[in-house]
Structure formats: structure tokens, C-alpha cells
């Protein structure tokens, strides 16, 4: 075992991040290029997917490995943003180093002893990381909710109760996504293909979320890769394509009845764990005769029930195939369990259980298909099924063509990622803005009570903004607040285990303090189910941040007292909805806040510039020095992404020009004009930000990396506190 002192871990981390940045920034944005990965098996894979590249690098450096692990856990959650992650992290580290360099100069003479300096460094890093964490859990959400939310656009075409997808905005969202994911000459085609696919698969417009869920879960079964054809030959195929050929194909017209079996139809001599004793040759012959007759009887029975297609998860013996062919039943064998589960989800069909006595058995488990025929793609034969769907998903498949397998795979991955991204974009995302300050004391139940009382007194940070809004609001509001406070009192007396609550929390909550703040948050939101979605839209597209767009958030295990609270709370939370426009925003944030489903912003660094602007504003008002510093660092670092995006642009479209114009627009309260078409989801951007900040705190808190030469046996942690 060897201890490797990681003095100045920021510098080291920055070096690592810079190397990764140079690789990744080449593929970032619409101008990004492709990367070719070769595998040891000789295959080649083309990719612009950050996660894929980082994995292919097989990095050895410990900090790099931490970063890659953070990126992949972020990707698992959202399916997008790996490249931006690295770029942003790199800029954050750069910002941190600049600050420390300055400090070093001034403190140089005080810390002459190197050992002592190292420890001081570590302490300071810990302190800074603490500040970052505070920022991530509190200030970020506050800024998002109070300032940025007024700029959000919605992807839904109308803000009524029924969410309907708007085709043009979906096209813009997907277009922007694929710009960063697939080659430049194909992204239009792929995003058009995906858009068509989503609309073709959605049988019922309001239930598109269900469709996205099925497609995301079963994407592997819903695509067919075809190599050797130009990409432009990719198309959508109506129905389901199974990647195997018929064992027997009997052409049939009209509706086709389907049966699924999971075992061989032909009975076997013996089942596992049993013993079959043969005493004479005659016995052998009779048992074989019986087997044959029974198989025939079952197949005949299926034919009598007008079954035309037999889907089997296992290989059926020759006899079954022969009998099925004679009786005009097509057979598809060896379906994978994934294919089976997809088919079952689409047609809601349970497998056929072999009857004990075949004569009197009514077949209940059948479904219908419109057609069932062989499909030839690139001289390979597939089974093509036109299932009649019983759910909101109308089955369609995508045939993806490309000259090389690597490109087809890239498109497959990009499409799969896009479905993941859409699923995320159509989910509400909770922000925690209830607690405003003093996280140190907020550790147990009673503290929430204290906290909320504090909020009545309006702590320093929110002081300026909220107090103003208070003066504007009607006096009634104050009365409501008092009521809320009583609610919170009740709430804090409840013994609700926080573990249970965490199940409801969507964002990850790394600190106890945050969980507690959710406690109030959640309890209060319990009131919302009855209200449904009420969205007050004054300007088309711009949605005020309503707390009520999350009706499905009923909580498990509400105690009796809790119900009382709910009743009380309901009255309160309906109230703010009567207010209009921005006042609603401020008063609502006391109850709960979230990024509503389908919130988007135009691409091209809009989100970054907005956040940059508001963070700087916030930093100016903020009194605590470390919060100011952290906000400044983040505000500056976040501009790194648009800087790369605009790198190749010249003249009026260069980054400084765009930036200045955007700031001017913000200062004069005019809408920001974006010269790019395309949208991106706010929720994914927000999640990216939090993931990066978590990764950063992760890196900063490590003071020592211990290099172990042994074979890895168990999961080891790098916590070196006990070692020293």
C-alpha cells in the first residue's frame, strides 16, 4: 500500500479535467465532430456520446475515474449531458484555482511549513466544498424558482389540464438533442424520424408518457439495424418486427389469432426430477403413440379455436412444427423474454397453459393481429406482426440503416438516449426552496418549525426580493402565512420517519438538512391531489411556476394527524392561485416549487446566460462572503459551455456579441432573442448542474489518494481519515 499525497488536489483535478475537456469539446454542440473508437475485438464504433467516449478511454488516474463514475451515474438518470458535464466541471475547477492562486500570494509568508500548509489546504477545500453543497441545495433552487422560471417555455401546445404534445416544439427539442449526438449530415433525418415515430406510436394523444415509457424500456426490441444501406433509407415500419424467421409460415388473411406458449407442446417422456421406468418395448411404443396423439390433439384444438399464429419462447420439437404446418398455424420459436414481455405489454396476453384434458377447453388467452407476414430486410427474413394494441402504444418499429455497423449503433444509442431525455423532460422536478438559510442548525424536526418561523421574519438572503413582493401582495396573504405557520407547527410535531419521505423525493438529497426541508415540502404538497392541474396562462407559452402540476404525488402512510394537516393546508394552497402573474410565484414558493413537466428554453446557451446573469445579481445582494464567491465562480464557469458552442461563429454571432445582447435584453426586461431554432429541457440542465456540483464536492473533499497494488477484492473507499 502506498499513500500518494495529493497536495493541491484542485490543480491535479484541473489537469485531468482539461485533458478530458480537449477530447470531449471536439464533439460538443452542433459543430462537434465524430470520434472513432476501436474495440480489441476489431469492431469500430462511431460516437459523439460523451459517456461512451469516457468509458472507451479506460482511464487510470484516480480522479479521472471519480469523474467518469459521476458522469455515468448522471447519465443513468438523465441520458444526456456527459460532455457538458466535463466542460462545466473543468471551468469550475479553473475558477477555483484562480481564486486559490490569488490567496496563495497573500498568504505565502504565513505558511512556510509545508506540512502545515497541506492541512490548511485540506481544511479550506472542505470548507469550500461545504459552500458548494450549500449552494447546490439551497441557492440554486431559489434562483431557479424565483428568477429563471419566468423565462421558461412549455413544450405542451396548450396549458389546459390535458397535456398535448406540440409537434413543432417536439421537433425543436429533438433537433437540438440530435445536433449534439449524431453526425452533422444525419441529425435532421434522425430527429424527423424520431418525431414521426413518437406521433405514430401514440394512439391516444394525452397518454404519450406511457408510450415513451414502453419505448424506452423495450427500445432494443423496437429497432432493427440494417447495415450496407445509406442512412437515408431508414424508415418506420408499422407493426412489430421480430428478429427471427418463421419456423413454419402459413399465409392467412383477415384477423389472426395469436397464442403464446412458454413450454413445448409435445409432452416429454419425463420431466426434471422424475423417473420414467420402461418395462417393455410395447410400453415404449404406446407411450410414443400417446405423445404423438396428444400433440396432434392440442394442435388440432388450437386450430379449432381458429388460432393462426403460435409464438413460442422455447424450441418446439419437429412433430409440433409438422402438425402446426398441417393445420395452417404459423410458428415463431425461441422468442426472447424481452420480446415476450413487449408483446404482452402491447396486447395484454398471458401465455397459454396446456390443458390437462384437451377436449373441453375454452381458449381464453388469445389476441388478434391484423397481419403476420415475413419481412425481408437486406436479404434477411424477419417476422412482421401487426398486433392490435390494447394499450396506448401503437406498435411501430424503426429500421435504422447505415453503411457501417458503428454508425447504426450510434444512431440506436442516440435514439434510446432521446427517449430517456423525453421521459425526463416530461416529469416534474422538485426544487426545495422552503428552507432559506442557516443549514447548520437544521437537523431535526423541531428545527423546521424554527426555520419556518424564521422565514416569517425573512432572513437576510431573500430579504430584498421577498420583502418587496410582500409589500405588493394583499394583506390577506399575511394571514395565510400565519396559517401556514401553524400548519408547519403541526407538521413538525409529527413523527414521520424521514426514510419514508425520501421515497417521494425525486432529486437526490445528500444532506439531512435537505431531507427535512422536504418534509415540510412534501407534507404540504399532499394537499394538491384534489386540485388537479390549474395553470394560469397570461402569456402564451410562458408558464408561471405552478406548484400544482403534480397530482400523482400522494404519499404512502399518511398518519391520522397528517390528514388533519392536509385539510388545513388545502385551503391555504388553493388561495395563491387566485393571484395572478409573478406574485403567485413568490407566494407559492412557500408551499413548494418545482420545475413543471415539459419546461424548455431555446438552445444556444440561453439557460447558461440566464443563470449567469441572475447568479451575479444574487451575488451582489448576498452578504455572506463565501456564498458570493461560490456564486461568482459558478456564474462564470457556466459560461464555458456557450463559449465552446459559439467558438466557430464570427461577427455578429460570436459569443461576446450574443452575450452582451442577452444581458442588455435582461436588464431592460425585454425578451431574449435567440437566433437558433431548437429547445432544450430545463430539468435536464438543472440536474446536470446539481450532478456537477456534487461531483466537485466529491473531488474537493478528498485529501489523499491511496494507491493499492493488490488485486481488487472488495469495494474500497478512499476515506483516509482513519488511516492517519
Amino acid at each position: 500500500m502506498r499513500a500518494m499525497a495529493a497536495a493541491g488536489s484542485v490543480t491535479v483535478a484541473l489537469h485531468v479535467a482539461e485533458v478530458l475537456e480537449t477530447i470531449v469539446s471536439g464533439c460538443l454542440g452542433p459543430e462537434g465532430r465524430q470520434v472513432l473508437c476501436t474495440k480489441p475485438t476489431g469492431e469500430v464504433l462511431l460516437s459523439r456520446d460523451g459517456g461512451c467516449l469516457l468509458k472507451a478511454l479506460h482511464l487510470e488516474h484516480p480522479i479521472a475515474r471519480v469523474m467518469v463514475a459521476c458522469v455515468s451515474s448522471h447519465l443513468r438518470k438523465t441520458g444526456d449531458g456527459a460532455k457538458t458535464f466535463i466542460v462545466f466541471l473543468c471551468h469550475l475547477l479553473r475558477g477555483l484555482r484562480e481564486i486559490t492562486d490569488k490567496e496563495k500570494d497573500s498568504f505565502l509568508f504565513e505558511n512556510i511549513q509545508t506540512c502545515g500548509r497541506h492541512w490548511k489546504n485540506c481544511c479550506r477545500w472542505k470548507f469550500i466544498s461545504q459552500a458548494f453543497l450549500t449552494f447546490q441545495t439551497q441557492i440554486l433552487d431559489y434562483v431557479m424558482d424565483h428568477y429563471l422560471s419566468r423565462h421558461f417555455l412549455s413544450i405542451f401546445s396548450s396549458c389546459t389540464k390535458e397535456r398535448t404534445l406540440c409537434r413543432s416544439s417536439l421537433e425543436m427539442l429533438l433537433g437540438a438533442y440530435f445536433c449534439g449526438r449524431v453526425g452533422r449530415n444525419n441529425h435532421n433525418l434522425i430527429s424527423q424520424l424520431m418525431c414521426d415515430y413518437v406521433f405514430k406510436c401514440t394512439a391516444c394523444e394525452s397518454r404519450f408518457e406511457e408510450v415513451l415509457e414502453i419505448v424506452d424500456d423495450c427500445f432494443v426490441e423496437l429497432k432493427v439495424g440494417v447495415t450496407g444501406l445509406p442512412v437515408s433509407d431508414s424508415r418506420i415500419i408499422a407493426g412489430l418486427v421480430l428478429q427471427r424467421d418463421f419456423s413454419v409460415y402459413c399465409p392467412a388473411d383477415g384477423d389472426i389469432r395469436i397464442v403464446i406458449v412458454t413450454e413445448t407442446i409435445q409432452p416429454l417422456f419425463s420431466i426434471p426430477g422424475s423417473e420414467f421406468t420402461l418395462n417393455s418395448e410395447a410400453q415404449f411404443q404406446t407411450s410414443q403413440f400417446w405423445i404423438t396423439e396428444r400433440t396432434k390433439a392440442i394442435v388440432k384444438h388450437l386450430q379449432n379455436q381458429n388460432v393462426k399464429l403460435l409464438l413460442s419462447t422455447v424450441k418446439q420439437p419437429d412433430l409440433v412444427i409438422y402438425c402446426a404446418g398441417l393445420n395452417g398455424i404459423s410458428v415463431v420459436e425461441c422468442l426472447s423474454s424481452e420480446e415476450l414481455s413487449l408483446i404482452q405489454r402491447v396486447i395484454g396476453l398471458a401465455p397459454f397453459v396446456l390443458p390437462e384434458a384437451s377436449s373441453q377447453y375454452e381458449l381464453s388467452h388469445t389476441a388478434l393481429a391484423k397481419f403476420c407476414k415475413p419481412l425481408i430486410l437486406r436479404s434477411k427474413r424477419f417476422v412482421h406482426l401487426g398486433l392490435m394494441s390494447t394499450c396506448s402504444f401503437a406498435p411501430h418499429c424503426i429500421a435504422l440503416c447505415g453503411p457501417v455497423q458503428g454508425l447504426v449503433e450510434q444512431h440506436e444509442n442516440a435514439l434510446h438516449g432521446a427517449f430517456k431525455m423525453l421521459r425526463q423532460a416530461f416529469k416534474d422536478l422538485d426544487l426545495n426552496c422552503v428552507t432559506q438559510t442557516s443549514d447548520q442548525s437544521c437537523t431535526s424536526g423541531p428545527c423546521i418549525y424554527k426555520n419556518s418561523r424564521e422565514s416569517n421574519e425573512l432572513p437576510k438572503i431573500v430579504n430584498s426580493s421577498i420583502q418587496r413582493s410582500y409589500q405588493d401582495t394583499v394583506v390577506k396573504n399575511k394571514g395565510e402565512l400565519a396559517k401556514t405557520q401553524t400548519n408547519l407547527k403541526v407538521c413538525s410535531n409529527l413523527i414521520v420517519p424521514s426514510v419514508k419521505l425520501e421515497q417521494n423525493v425525486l432529486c437526490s438529497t445528500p444532506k439531512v438538512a435537505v431531507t427535512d426541508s422536504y418534509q415540510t415540502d412534501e407534507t404540504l404538497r399532499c394537499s394538491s391531489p384534489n386540485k388537479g392541474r390549474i395553470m394560469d396562462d397570461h402569456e402564451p407559452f410562458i408558464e408561471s411556476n405552478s406548484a400544482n402540476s403534480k397530482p400523482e404525488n400522494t404519499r404512502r402512510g399518511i398518519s391520522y394527524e397528517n390528514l388533519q394537516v392536509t385539510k388545513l393546508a388545502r385551503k391555504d394552497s388553493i388561495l395563491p392561485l387566485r393571484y395572478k402573474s409573478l406574485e403567485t410565484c413568490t407566494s407559492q414558493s412557500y408551499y413548494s416549487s418545482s420545475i413543471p413537466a415539459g419546461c424548455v428554453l431555446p438552445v444556444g446557451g440561453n439557460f447558461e446566460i440566464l443563470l449567469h446573469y441572475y447568479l451575479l445579481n444574487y451575488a451582489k445582494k448576498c452578504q455572506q462572503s463565501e456564498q458570493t464567491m461560490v456564486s461568482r465562480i459558478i456564474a462564470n464557469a457556466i459560461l464555458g459551455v456557450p463559449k465552446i458552442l459559439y467558438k466557430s461563429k464570427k461577427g455578429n454571432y460570436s459569443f461576446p456579441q450574443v452575450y452582451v445582447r442577452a444581458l442588455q435584453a435582461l436588464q431592460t426586461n425585454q425578451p431574449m432573442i435567440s437566433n437558433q431554432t431548437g429547445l432544450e429541457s430545463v430539468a435536464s440542465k438543472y440536474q446536470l448542474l446539481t450532478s456537477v456540483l456534487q461531483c466537485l464536492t466529491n473531488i474537493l473533499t478528498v485529501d489523499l489518494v491511496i494507491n493499492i497494488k493488490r488485486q481488487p477484492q472488495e469495494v474500497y473507499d478512499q476515506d483516509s481519515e482513519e488511516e492517519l
Partner: protein
Amino acid sequence: MSRLEAKKPSICRSDPLTGERARASLAALKGLVTSCYGPAGRLKQLHNGRGGSVVTTSQSAALLAGLPVSHPVLKVLTAAVRNHVACFSDGGLFTAILCCNLVENVQRLGLAPTTVIKLNKHLLSLCTSYLKSEGCACRIPVDFSSTQILLSLVRSILTSKPACMLIAKEVDHISTLILRAFLLTIPENAQEHIILGKSIIVPLKGQRVIDSAVLPGILIEVSGVQLMKILPIKKSDSFKVALFCVSLSGDLSDTGEGTLLVSYGVSLENAALDQLFNLGKQLVSDHVDLVLCQKVIHPSLKQFLRTHHVIAVDRIGVSLMEPLSKVTGTWPIGSLGSISPSSYGSVKDLCIAKFGCKHFFHLIPNKTTICSLLLCNRNDTAWDELKLTCQTALHALQLTIKDPYVLLGGGCTETHLVAYIRHKTRNEPESVLRDERCSQTELQLITEAFCSALESLAGSLEHDGGEILTDSKYGHFWSVQANLPSAVNWPDLPSRCGCGLYSSQEELSWSFLRSARHPFPPQTCLSREATGSADTLTLDCFTAKLSGLQVAVETASLILDLSCVIEDTN
């Protein structure tokens, strides 16, 4: 025991195309494929020092399959070509050369990849929409009432593969055979969906090419020993056939996962044999004349069948099962128990034929779309090449039936396209410049790169140092012999253009292919009489060439778009 080893970090290289190594390997590949192209292409001999057979070829399918490629960029290129060949059989070298040319030409320009890719895509769409348009002058609609065009297409494919080692007479013979074999696979009474049959290529090596033949029905090879056991075939107008897909060897079928306990003295073999004899009795009582089995027939059953004048042939193999069941109209029998009478089929005639030194059992069907192409060539390598060529030709014919057009071959399509693109981008550049946001110069440069890639592709048909000319009326390809005496006025020499459509009797003005010229509008709309007059044209498969063009440009864009290569060295 496997050793657990930590993965080595990958090697990451940026800008994979600028290095000397990349340029050299790309040039090597280009030289390789260019020298194989066309009827005058040079042959390549692939041999592995560790053993295996030596392959002499000039086809991309055989060449790239045996060629180890180490550079990752070339891996992409060869994979694209091989996938194209797997889809269309034809046009592999065309795709490879065009892709290499494009990458090389664009690389030399040093423009931003974004612009290059955008404009290349635009030029490609210009080409494809022209080739698909009615006014296209390098596309001929196929007239199915005569065999002329189809025969020309097959001939062109055969002559472009010099490794088949055929002389002119043999080319004629083989191309008629291929066309006949193809025509036999078309069903007589076609509905809206034509389901083509199959031509089975039967190898007969060591014979003269002229001995090749096409026979309707299926040939099953039988050994001499087997032949002696087959009885003289009685005359009849129809033979009843049973086709088995289960083994008739008397072995036990799957008995399940549990244990099977057999008492002492019980012989399952006898029981199984009894079952087989029962089956035999049923076959005899059903008056079956011929029993075919995919797997093995037990000798006792064979003997039994022979004594009852039933012909039994076993070990047919899975590849012949589907055509056999089609030819005879049987349903492959998967049961040893009772057989449904509906699963029997029939053939019109049976005979034993001898070709070369091989004996075949010939099943002549009543009416089906299966035929056998008995292919002969002198040696193994040439036979392999010929077989591949025949498959290519049959596939090209199938594609032509789907999309009934052919393209002019012999380099004429390429030079004509070049003339069209040059003219189009020079005279109507406004739409491009507006849509793609690029400058006039960029468009000019990339059009030039694209066109010269196509021109040098056409130029690589010439391997003997000749000069290549193009006319300024049709934009066709004309080649002149090398080493001409300087006194001769060379434009008088070419008698026919590359595809053979136009002759030099017309008043045409020529210029060198790769020389600076003023863009001219090539004459569009092919006249009917022009296609009718020429008897032997050089033609290319439309679908394969169009897709090859698209794949080549797409792959080139892909390669040019690479910013770095990550090589996993584990």
C-alpha cells in the same frame, strides 16, 4: 483459470486523417482497389503464409474479405464497402474508389469539415435526384419484351471480372445461361407480388466452361455406391414424394430432462426399428415412389423400401430442404407416427444424370420456379470467382426487376454526372448558397473536388496508360490507346464511347477528361432509337450503383468528420 488483469488505458489520437501514416495507408488502399477496377483491371493474389488456399481475384467481396486492415479509418471504409456488397453484390470497387477519392480530394482542400459535409450532401442529393428523374440521360428503362438489355447487363458484369478467365465465346455462353436461369425463377402466372424462385448453383470443377448448363428442377449429388443401390427407374408420368426432416435412423428422440429407466432385456433399438418399419409399411401402402430425408435413413429401412420398389435418398442437408419442398409440393414430415396424406408431393419425372465425373439424381418438377445452374470452370480459384460473379449477376437481375432501369456503364454515367453537376452549380448556385450558408468559393472548390473524384473513378477504368477524353455534347467517356504516333490527330480515333451508345461518326468535340473546360449542359433525355440501335451496351445495375454512390459519399463524410480516434489496446 483466467487471470484478472486491469485494463490498459486506451490510446487517443486527434485528427486521424492528417498524419503521414493515415495518408499512406489510404493511398495504399486506393491503389489496391483502383488497379482492380474494370474489365482491364489487374488481378490480386491473396495468400496466407500459414496455409489455406490461394485466392486470385479482382472482386471487392473476395479482396476485402481476405485483407487485414489495421488503420481504424480504413476499417470504417472497408466495412462500409463490405456491407454494401453484402446488400447489393455489385458496385463494391466503385464505392471504395469513390470514397477514397473523395476523402483524399477534400483532405487536400483543408476546408472546415462542416461546410464540406454539408456541400457534399447537397451534391449527392443533386446526383440522386437527377439519376431518379425522368430526364436523366444516363439511365435506360428496361424493356422486358426483349432480352437485349438484360443480356448486356449480365455480359457487362461478367466482363468486368477478369479473374473468371473467360474467353468471349464463354462469356456469351455463361451470360445466356445466367439469364435463362433467372427467367426460370420467375413464376408464370404472376399476381401483384412476384415471389421469385431460386437458382441453385451446382459446382462442377475441372470441366470446360462451355459444359455449363441450366436444368429445371433440382440436382441431388449421389455417390457411385449409392447409385448402384438405386433401382432402375420405372416409367411413369408422376412420382409420389415424401420428404422427411426428422432423422429416420432409429435413434431416440428427446426424452426430457428426467431420467429414463429401462428394465433389463428391453431393447429400445428394436422398438424404434419396429416403429420405422411401421412407417415404411405406411409409405408403401400410400404408394410413395420416392423417400427423401434431410438426415440419415436406417439401413434396414432403406433395404425394406428397396424391396418394395421405393427409392430412398438420405443426407440431403438443410440447404436443399426448402427448394425441395417447393419443387415437390411436399410438407416436410416431422413425425414418425401416422403421416397425413396431404404432406406428400409429386414430381413429373426422375432421372439419373451424369455430368463430368459426378452422378446426379435429377428431379424434374411439374411447374416450379426452381432451377439448377451447373457451373463449370477449369480450376478452383477461377470457379470460385465465376460462382461469385454468377451470384452477382443473378442478384443484379433481381434488383433490376424491382426497379426496372439500368445505368450506362463504362465510365459514361460518371462523366455525364460530372458534366451535369458542373453545369448545375455554375449556373444555379444561388439556391445552394442561400440554403447552406457558404461562400461561392467554397462551393466551387468542393464541387471541383467532388467532380474530380468521379472523374478519376472513371479514369481508373483505363489501366494501360491510354488517354481519356470526354465529348462536349453528351458528356460521355471515350478512351484512346496509349503511345499513339503524335502525327495522328487523336480525336478521330475513338470509335465508340465507354458504354457503346454513341459512335464517333457524329460531329463531336473532345477534350481531355481532367483538363480545365468550360462547363456545358450535357444533353438530357435519351432518345429511344439511340438505345435501340446499339446492340451491345455496357450497363450497370441501377439500384446497386445508386446505393453505392450514396454509401460512398456518406462514408467519406463520416471519415472527414472524425476528430479523434480512441484505440482500445486491450
